[in-house]
């Protein structure tokens, strides 16, 4: 058993501690270097993750390294990398950069632990590590009431969800007698399903649903995404959201194999409500960050279709869409950050930096940003060739064939609702696109800061690259789904 497989996590943990140490040593002015260090560390960790081939389990089978954890770790690392690169500019004058980068790195480690968790305890610890780091990150602009409010709401609902999740875990432990997920599965496969099991499931769904931002556990998300520093929103929407999914894949999928149909209906209802609610409310938003938040909710609805069908294909589709969403949504928030920077450089006292009116003529003022945002939006709307399309393609495919092969009317209805939603979402994406390219600019052309550009281009490359050559990621996703053995 070689701990080499855990090298990315170890590297990041060490780096997190190192960053805070270096922060003590260097002057405030040269703290910028920490951003580069973190980015380099994340990149190294990403390369290690992609490069490693083996599988293994550690710490009494509490941590496993398998294709599922692998692809989600890639998602988390990519999102963090994008966020960190963008932060180099976003927080360049901040005295507390050392704390900031440490927290981001720790959050990433937490998410990675969740991805690898094969024990409820490890899952819980990872979950909390990531959550608590992001609570702080959300409120990182200490003087900004919106940021603090975002953090508070995030914290309260997050803690509530942790409590629900923990309560659910305690029940699962109670009925199955183990905290190890594999053993729990064995139990569920053989045992008669009792009311307590269902109760436990519901609590777990609620706990994970908070991270996934499924309606009705989504309430915090728009406020938090809107209020947090934009780069942190990027991390939250694109990264920590996926933590809920990987946890759900790990725990719920297994459990649902046992209880099958009933809880599927729960997810069907959640998915339909979530995507419809997200899209419908996104239409009337003025704040782009808030609109993106609702769009994230809608995307979560699509991804949770994977739980409705529960086939290897559907889970692969969910994973693919999660991966795609990491690039698209992460990139989109960074682009919004550029606009915020642009607006503030116009006028320091602007309140609503992410108001849609600030996007007017963006195509002329900040061409790279506008083009990137255009790509992200089309990808989010599911227009090919993009990662968003590939994800939806596989996902909708899996639902359709399930509907056809089981002659299931309600699945058909669900997939039709999903495509109508997908079409509806074009409305609000196109609205922003219109602002960017059709309306006249409201200011001068700006110089787009290099870190942002690099971050966005990374996301664009990911988005388009997966769309143009999805073969490797499809294989990865299929392998990941096969781990679950459904």
């Amino acid at each position, binding site marked *: 058993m070689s701990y080499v497989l855990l090298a990315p996590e170890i590297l990041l943990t060490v780096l997190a501690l190192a960053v805070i140490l270096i922060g003590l040593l260097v002057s405030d002015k040269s703290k910028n270097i920490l951003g580069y260090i973190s980015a380099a560390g994340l990149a190294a960790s990403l390369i290690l993750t992609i490069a490693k081939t083996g599988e293994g389990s550690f710490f009494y089978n509490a941590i496993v390294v398998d294709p599922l954890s692998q692809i989600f770790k890639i998602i988390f690392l990519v999102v963090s990398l994008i966020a960190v690169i963008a932060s180099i500019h976003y927080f360049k004058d901040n005295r507390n950069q050392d704390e900031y980068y440490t927290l981001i790195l720790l959050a990433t480690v937490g998410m990675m632990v969740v991805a690898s968790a094969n024990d409820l305890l490890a899952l819980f610890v990872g979950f909390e590590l990531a959550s608590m780091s992001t609570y702080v990150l959300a409120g990182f602009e200490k003087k900004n009431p919106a940021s603090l409010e975002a953090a508070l709401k995030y914290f309260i609902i997050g803690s509530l969800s942790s409590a629900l999740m923990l309560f659910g875990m305690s029940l699962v432990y109670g009925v199955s007698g183990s905290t190890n997920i594999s053993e729990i599965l064995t139990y569920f496969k053989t045992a008669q399903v009792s009311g307590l099991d269902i109760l436990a499931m519901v609590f777990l769904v609620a706990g994970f649903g908070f991270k996934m931002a499924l309606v009705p556990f989504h309430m915090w998300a728009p406020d938090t995404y809107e209020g947090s520093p934009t780069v942190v929103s990027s991390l939250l929407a694109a990264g920590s959201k996926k933590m809920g999914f990987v946890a759900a894949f790990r725990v719920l999928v297994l459990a649902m194999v046992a209880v099958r149909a009933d809880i599927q209906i729960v997810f069907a209802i959640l998915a339909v409500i979530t995507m419809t609610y997200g899209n419908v409310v996104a239409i009337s938003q003025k704040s782009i960050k808030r609109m993106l938040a609702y769009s994230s909710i809608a995307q979560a609805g699509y991804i949770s279709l994977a739980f409705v069908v529960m086939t290897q294909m559907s889970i692969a589709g969910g994973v693919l869409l999660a991966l795609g969403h990491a690039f698209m949504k992460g990139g989109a928030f960074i682009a919004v950050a550029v606009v915020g920077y642009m607006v503030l450089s116009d006028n320091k006292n602007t309140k609503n930096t992410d108001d849609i009116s600030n996007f007017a003529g963006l195509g002329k003022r900040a061409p790279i940003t506008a083009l990137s945002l255009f790509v992200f939006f*089309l990808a989010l709307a599911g*227009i*090919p*060739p993009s990662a968003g*399309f590939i994800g939806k*393609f*596989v996902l*909708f*495919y899996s639902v*359709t*064939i399930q*509907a*056809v*092969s089981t*002659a299931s*009317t309600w699945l*058909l209805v669900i*997939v*039709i609702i999903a*495509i*109508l939603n*997908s*079409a*509806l979402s*074009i*409305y609000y994406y*196109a*609205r922003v696109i*219109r602002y960017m*390219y*059709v309306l006249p600019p409201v200011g001068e052309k700006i110089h787009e800061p290099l870190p942002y550009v690099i971050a966005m281009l990374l996301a664009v490359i990911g988005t388009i690259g997966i769309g143009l*050559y*999805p*073969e490797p990621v*499809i*294989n990865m996703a*299929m392998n990941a789904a096969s781990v679950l053995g459904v």
Partner: protein
Amino acid sequence: MTAYISLMIAIPLIGAILAFLTKTRQQARAVALVSSGISLLISIIMLSRFDSSLAGIQLDEIHSWIPSLGITLSFGVDGIGMPLVLLSCIVIPLTVIFAWGETKEPNKFYGLILLELVGVLGVFTSLDFFVFYIFWEIVLIPMYFLISIWGGPRKDYAAIKFFIYTHIASLVMLLAIFALYFNAWQITRTPDFNMFHLLKNYSLLDGWLITNVISIKDAIFIGLLFGFIVKMPAVPFHTWLPDAHVEAPTAGSVILAALLLKMGGYGLFRVILPLLPFSDSPGKMITLMAIIGVLSILYGTFLALAQRDLKKMVAYSSISHMGYVTLGAAALVPLSVSGAMFQQFSHGLITCVLFMSCGVIQHSAGTRIIGDLGGIAKYMPKLTFVMLAGFLASLGLPGMSGFIAELLVLLNSYANLPTFVILALFGIVFTAGYHLWAMQRAVFGTFNEKLGHIHDGANYEIASMAVLVLLIIFFGLYPNPVLNMMTTTATPLVRDAAGLVGVIV
């Protein structure tokens, strides 16, 4: 294996990127003209290499892409695709020439036009359903921009309506494609998105989607049909079209009507016809298509008659003309099907002239409302000449390409769909009616002095229209270069359907 098609698609794509990067309008339009011109050249070479006596796919090429899903980049043309490829490569350079004077963001304008060419060429040549779908969707985006940047006063409404409406249809079609793919996978257990393989396996499907309500076969069929007829567009799914046309800039309208609508018809021939004989109730499906076709013909005609805006009238005339495509396809006779294919080709040419005329009038007189015009022939003799030719072609004057198409459809559809042909014949008088009525009020008569000083179309505008008119007349007198290959392809396509004549309602 040849590489004509990928070259033909790649060059405008590169051209589009270059055009976006250009700084001046001279550079942009030169790039657009050269790259679309090269595509035209390639398509002509393809035409010369194309053997009209062979029914199958020719000039095909295949590149692997996503093996895990069985997706390949495979392209090829046959009698269905080749004429439309040619049409696209003719229309785009002429549109560029017509829009030679564009001054508003010319680099984007020409770039988007080239992107449209990429999209439609992809649709007309892909032989893989996945790739087909991708191009099918890509086409929407440049058109969205063409409408919403260069469009008229209600451009936002029109652009988004166009986008969402047709996107929904595409997604429904995608679901049906999923089902086909899954079906083929169940049989062969190898992932494969090849269009022909999927279509071939359709006949092996069975079972209910909703028990005793709709069978899987019928559901797939209707899903695909829906995807295509919205694009065509057919009544009652047509209302996006008039809005889009009214608001779109002339070049956008030209591309929309001449090329994008043809994608729907292309789908009918490429996808629907091979499936039709094997659907669970072919008789009902044929009747459905025939009803849609005739309804579009008549409804489009009457709505055109009701319009006050010249361009909207032309838009409705497109709906009416595309009805012949559906009708001819539904009749399942080799010559009616090739007539319908020819209608696609012919309407592509004719409608360009009509929309370009509207554009010139709008530009010169500042209005397209028929009642506000009047007597403009006096100051716009050149325009009047080509416009009249276009209108006459559109109303089906013999000697012009539209006549041959409609004649073939009517003559050959009657055997299977007598009632529908009789109904369609009724439309002919009214078709002539709205064309001539509009001409009479807008172009002829006494000059409306309120229009002030108006001038004739620019030479480049008139020239591109004149080329189209010449092509319309050429194909009206000698349709064989494209009609032969259409007939060759159509014959095996409907041979399977011969036994269905008995079940047609």
